[in-house]
Structure formats: C-alpha cells, structure tokens
C-alpha cells in the first residue's frame, strides 16, 4: 500500500524530485510572502492616509480578494495575467507576445492573496502605536523616513509577529493551489509521481508529511523570533 522503496533518492525513486519540489514550495512561499508584505504596506498606507479614493481602492481590493476563493484568484491571474501584461506593454509600444513564467505568476498570485491578510495584521499593529510617540519623534526633528524606520517599524514588527506567523502558515498552505498552474512544487510533484507509479496514497501522504514538517518548523522559527523581538517586554 505505502511504497517506501519509491521514495529513495536517485533514479529508482522520487526522493530527490520531492526535495527539489519542497525547495520550490519554500521559494514561492518566501517570495510571495515578501511581495505580499510590500503590497500590504502600500495597502495599509492607502487606508490610513486621509484620502477617500485611495481608501476606497484599498478597501475594495481587500474585500474582494478575501471574499473570493483563492483558487479563482489564481486562475484569474494565471489565465488573465499574460493579457494584462501584454496590454500594458502595448501602451509602451511593445507589441510582441509576452509570456510570464510559472514562478512569476505563482508568486504574484499568492502575494496578492497573502497581502490582504498581512495588511489587516499590519494595520491592527500600527494602530497600537500611540500618537504621542510619533509627535515626540517629530518634535525631535526626525524626518518621515527616520520616524518610519526607527519609531514605527520596530514596534509594528513586534506587535505584528504572531499575526504574520499565521499569515505565513496560510501562505505556505496556499502554495499548494499553485499546482494547477503547472509549477512543480510539492503538490504537483505528488500528482506527477502518483500518475507514473499508480500509487497516489504513497505520494499524497509524502506531500502531507512534507507540508506538516514545513509548518511545524516555521512555527518554531516564529516562536523564536517572537521571543527575540519581545526582549524586555516578556513577562
């Protein structure tokens, strides 16, 4: 039933393929988490400045993406992304056919989804910073950049870390949906292997165990980070 011999490394088994697939899952997760955090910062900024238009756009974006299944967002970006990029290129006078590779599309799609979750976390932790601190920094003559990097972000990171850890777990699990685009990550690899070997149970359980390892290890990492960042605050 469970064929251990199919999981050895080398040509006889799928061990090395699964190792590469696991690294691919990690790569997509890290890239899209990073891009997602960047998008989330922009979204939070758009929500917090006193501008009705940017606030409306940001709210529209987070509401729609969070209300629509992740799979649908991935399909939309995977099948519609090329057309959008080509029409943007056309504006700049570039008329040839452009095809984004699977990794780029996967990263963008997952980032668009994870940014909506990250933005909620970042916004909540930004709001915990009291206004007096920003005013005090301004009174010391700090400019906007140093206020952001020296006063706001250290505190936001500390408050947001548990939430960001949750978003990371969601992002990691969402990368399994990327398999529908053909990018060979854990899920796709397990489907390919089980089609070749006619043993879905073996490879799907392998995939489940790999995901479990990834989530467990990363939750440990985030716990350590949290301890690190809450030095002097923890009880």
């Amino acid at each position, binding site marked *: 039933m469970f064929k251990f011999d199919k999981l050895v490394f080398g040509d006889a088994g799928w061990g090395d393929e699964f190792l590469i697939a696991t690294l691919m899952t990690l790569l997509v997760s890290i890239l899209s988490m990073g891009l997602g955090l960047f998008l989330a910062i922009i979204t939070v900024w758009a929500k917090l400045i006193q501008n009705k238009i940017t606030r409306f756009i940001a709210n529209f974006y987070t509401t729609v993406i969070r209300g629509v299944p992740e*799979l649908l967002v991935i399909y939309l970006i995977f*099948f*519609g992304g090329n057309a959008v990029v080509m029409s943007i290129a056309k504006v700049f006078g570039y008329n040839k056919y452009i095809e984004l590779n699977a990794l780029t599309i996967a990263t963008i799609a997952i980032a668009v989804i994870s940014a909506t979750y990250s933005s909620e976390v970042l916004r909540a932790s930004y709001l915990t910073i009291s206004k007096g601190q920003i005013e005090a920094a301004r009174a010391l003559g700090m400019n906007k950049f140093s206020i952001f990097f020296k006063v706001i972000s250290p505190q936001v990171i500390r408050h947001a870390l548990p939430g960001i850890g949750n978003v990371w777990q969601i992002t990691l699990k969402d990368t*399994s949906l990327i398999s529908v685009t053909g990018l060979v990550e854990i*899920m796709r690899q397990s489907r390919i292997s089980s089609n070749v070997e006619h043993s*879905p149970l073996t490879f*799907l*359980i392998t995939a*489940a165990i790999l995901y479990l390892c990834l989530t467990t290890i990363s939750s440990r990492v985030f716990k350590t980070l949290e301890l690190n960042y809450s030095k002097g605050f923890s009880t």
Partner: protein
Amino acid sequence: MIEFLNSIQNSLIYKNFFLVLSGLDNTILLLLISLPVGFVLALLFALGRVSKIALLSRTIASYIFVIRGTPLLVQIYLIYFGLGSVKFIRESFLWYALKEPFWCGVIALTINTVAYGAEIFRGGIQSIEKSQVESGLSLGFGKFLLLRKIILPIALRKVLPSYGNELILMVKATSLVSLTTYMEMTGIARKIMAKTFAPVEAFIAAGILYLFLNFLMVQFVKYLEWKYNPHLRLNN
C-alpha cells in the same frame, strides 16, 4: 438606453453569470451538509480536547495538529485519489460514498472544518471565567446542566466572530472540490474558460457569485451576533 441594455445582455459576463449560477446549488449542497455536521463534531471535539481524559485530549490535539498543518487540497486529494486506490476500501461499503466526488468533497470539508472549529471552540470554552462555573456548581448544577446552561452559551457567544470567519473560509474552500471533477461554480467557470478562451469573463462571473454568497454569510453571522448579545445592543 435600450442599446446599452442589449449590449449588457450580449456581453460574455452576463451570459457566463447564468451558466455559473447553475452551479450555485452544488456549492450550497456541499456547505449544507459539511457546515452543520462540522459544527456539531467540532463542539464534541472541543469538549474532548478540554476534558481531563489525557488519551482523548491528546488524540484530538494531534488530529487538529495534522489537519491544520496540511493544505486542504492535500486532504481532498488524499480522500478522492488516495483512498480510492486502496483495494480493501474499494471492496468495502465505503466505496459507495468515496467513488462520488461530491461525498469526497463533503468528507474532506467536514474533516477540515472540524479541526479549525474545535480549536476555536476550545478557545471559547477555556476563556470562561472560573467564577461563572463555580456559581453554577454552587447552585447544584450537574455536569450536563452546567454545560447546557452556562458553558456552551457563553463560549459560543464569545467565539461567534471567529467562527464566522471560519464559515467564510469554508465557502471559499468549496471551490477546491472542483479539482475532483465535481461541477460546482469554479468547475463550471473553468469549463466555460476552456470553451470560450475568455478566462477573465468566466472567473469574474464566478467571483461575483462567491462574493454574494460570502456577503450573505457575513449578514447571517452579524444577525446571530445581534441576537445572542442582547447586553451589547446600544438601544433596545
């Protein structure tokens, strides 16, 4: 004006909208079974998790750990492709359910929501103040009465917002069942895309319907919150 209406009626999104709408009942069918069953099982699992029987509590904790640590897609595939490949399951009565993508979807969604729900309910149950349980005990409440009159009402009321979140995640999760050839809204949208080569129109039509479904879910949860939190209403 009439020209404008005609152009809307002839547009792809409009036509796709009604095609995708025909999959709405399949999506709702998935939810109608997995959500109530998931709710009841999650409550039982949460009670088992906080119980003093170590073996039961450990078992449920590891079940929750495994389900929350793996993607839903793996669980769906494991049940649909994985279990179907095992010979003695194919020969047992389980095969009547497991050969249908619909029942595989229902089973996977239920297993998933039970794990998340149990964790939410556990949080609610453990957040109840000891004094409230003690006052119940001092009135001579038995275990069952304590559960029914004090623990469950307070805990459920507290976790309504986060359980509402889980309900919305479940609505979104039904789209994954389309990958087992079950024709609900996402499956139909993908079929339209394959036929017309117009992906954006097909998926936007489906997206609008999912947004609507989630909107209804949010309103339902809001109503429940209003109903069961009379002490928080501003004016009554």
